[in-house]
């Protein structure tokens, strides 16, 4: 078998060196009752058969290369420069281990240092960690950073966050004696400032907002920032990272921490993972950051050298005194993001942001002129907005699918109160022909 280099000759020689006659003796301490379990697995496949079998499974799936998609809601179809996949397919990157031995890992370490640098530049924040599992878990950890920093036990979370993110924060808090309260939004999906004012109190460690939010709206966070900081609470932001190509950064808003999903920075959707949680903060919060941090230093000959640093925060050293248990992160995805950001570069990131915006603005305008459709997200957007349909979204979705189009998310799946509402996403990959096709198709369906 191809992955087992030990031959029967080798085996015999090795057993002799060990000094046993029977290999089974090596398992001698295993209680009899635990040996030879009955395990049922499908029969082994050769590589050719595996190719065939798994291709057949892949072929069963409608995918974004076969259909024109307007799905967003936390997962985005973006252009990925060919150089990204090509670089991270280097075995030296993807089959290497965590860079605990810096002399043997300068490639990974420098690539991650550059990732940290680029996230700082993109978000305006002072320090970025070397990745977290995904946007939702990164945001949950940001909340815990706020608890530790302020020594307060409650967090206010905007209802206009992606519902998965709110759910994950809730899961992380459940069973601890920390708590959360949800702050509502107004008719145009903007944060309800009066509700926020009512809830801000001494025990509030942080206010968590999204901009663009789940409904696509980009908000002015000036008042939120003022209220939060006046109350001694931190401001935590979550956002689509490419929106910072055009829109104000978390640093610009005065946020203390930003955490979100980095999938849009060079990773395909992959049905939900592996993705990339990005997490960045003000300098004063540096030691509260979970996860690995790559630092720059020199060796004794004065050569520049990168290494993991501030490790004494982490679980392998602090054990139960660590503030986070994270060990394995999403390093290769962070390297992909690093390559992506380097490829699109300083001017490219603005161009891509505007390409997203123009598709979304154009589509929104075109749909707004269809009498039976109502656009609900009317303020500034990045690449998503909500529309109200005259019928059940299900019907519309099915009719669109028949024309090779994947419709946006039906919002009643998130909250049954949001009847007949659809969250549409148009990224830079949609052509004018596809946008036209969608508008025509929708017009035809709703009348």
């Amino acid at each position, binding site marked *: 078998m191809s992955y087992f280099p030990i031959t029967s000759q080798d085996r015999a020689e090795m057993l002799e060196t060990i000094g046993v006659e029977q290999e089974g003796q090596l398992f001698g301490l295993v209680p009899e009752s635990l040996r030879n379990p009955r395990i049922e697995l499908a029969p082994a496949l050769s590589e050719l058969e595996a190719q065939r079998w798994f291709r057949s499974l892949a072929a069963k799936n409608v995918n974004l290369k076969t259909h024109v998609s307007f799905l967003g809601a936390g997962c985005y179809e973006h252009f990925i420069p060919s150089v990204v996949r090509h670089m991270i397919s280097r075995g030296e990157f993807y089959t290497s281990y965590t860079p605990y031995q810096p002399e043997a890992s300068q490639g990974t370490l420098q690539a991650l240092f550059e990732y940290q640098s680029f996230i700082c530049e993109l978000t305006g924040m002072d320090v970025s960690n070397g990745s977290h599992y995904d946007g939702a878990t990164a945001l949950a950890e940001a909340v815990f950073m706020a608890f530790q920093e302020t020594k307060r036990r409650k967090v206010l979370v905007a209802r206009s966050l992606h519902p998965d993110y709110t759910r994950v924060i809730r899961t992380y808090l459940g069973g601890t004696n920390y708590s959360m309260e949800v702050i509502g939004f107004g008719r145009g999906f903007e944060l309800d400032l009066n509700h926020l004012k009512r809830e801000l109190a001494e025990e509030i460690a942080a206010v968590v907002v999204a901009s663009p939010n789940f409904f696509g709206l980009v908000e002015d966070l000036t008042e939120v920032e003022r209220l939060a900081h006046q109350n001694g609470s931190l401001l935590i932001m979550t956002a689509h990272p490419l929106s910072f190509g055009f829109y104000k950064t978390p640093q610009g808003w005065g946020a203390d921490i930003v955490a979100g999903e980095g999938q849009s920075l060079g990773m395909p959707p992959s049905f939900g993972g592996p993705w990339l949680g990005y997490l960045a903060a003000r300098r004063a919060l540096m*030691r509260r950051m979970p996860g690995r941090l790559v630092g720059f230093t020199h060796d004794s000959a004065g050569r520049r050298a990168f290494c993991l640093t*501030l*490790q*004494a925060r982490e679980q392998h*050293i*602090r054990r139960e*005194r660590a503030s986070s248990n994270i060990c394995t992160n999403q390093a290769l995805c962070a390297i992909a993001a690093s390559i992506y950001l380097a490829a699109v570069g300083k001017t490219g990131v603005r161009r891509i942001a505007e390409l997203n915006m123009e598709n979304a603005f154009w589509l929104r305008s075109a749909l707004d002129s269809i009498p039976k459709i109502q656009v609900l997200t009317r303020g500034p957007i990045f690449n998503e907005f909500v529309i109200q349909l005259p019928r059940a979204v299900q019907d519309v979705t099915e009719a669109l699918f028949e024309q090779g189009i994947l419709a946006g998310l039906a919002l009643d799946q998130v909250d049954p109160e949001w009847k007949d509402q659809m969250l549409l996403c148009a990224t830079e990959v949609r052509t004018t022909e596809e946008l036209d096709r969608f508008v025509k198709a929708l017009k035809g369906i709703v009348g």
Partner: protein
Amino acid sequence: MNVPRELRYTKTHEWVKQLGGRVVVGITDYAQHEISDVVFVELPQVGQRVEAGKGISIVESVKAAFDIYAPVSGEIRAINTLLESDPAMVNQDPYGKGWFFELAPANPEEADALMTSDQYDQLINTRSTHGPP
């Protein structure tokens, strides 16, 4: 190993200096030697109440984190903010500029239970030189 005669000690390698109604606390030369290069010191907060024997500070080296314990019960009155910018001072001057915090003792009798310099000297000489303090 430097073990100043005028100080008192704990078996967890803190030194204690009586200063009027207060005590100043740091870690011993032996401790800083064991820890090796100190990269960060997490200090308690002024006003914090502490209990004798409870961990109230953490010293980090590159590879490890060490608990520092309150030698007596009381309230923290001052912390050495120099250690924030210059943690190396713990290694360079453990009994002087590398002090950690000052506290107002709650029970003066607790000071009597502390080790003398002779007792501490004996402790570190019979101890194996490996493993964290």
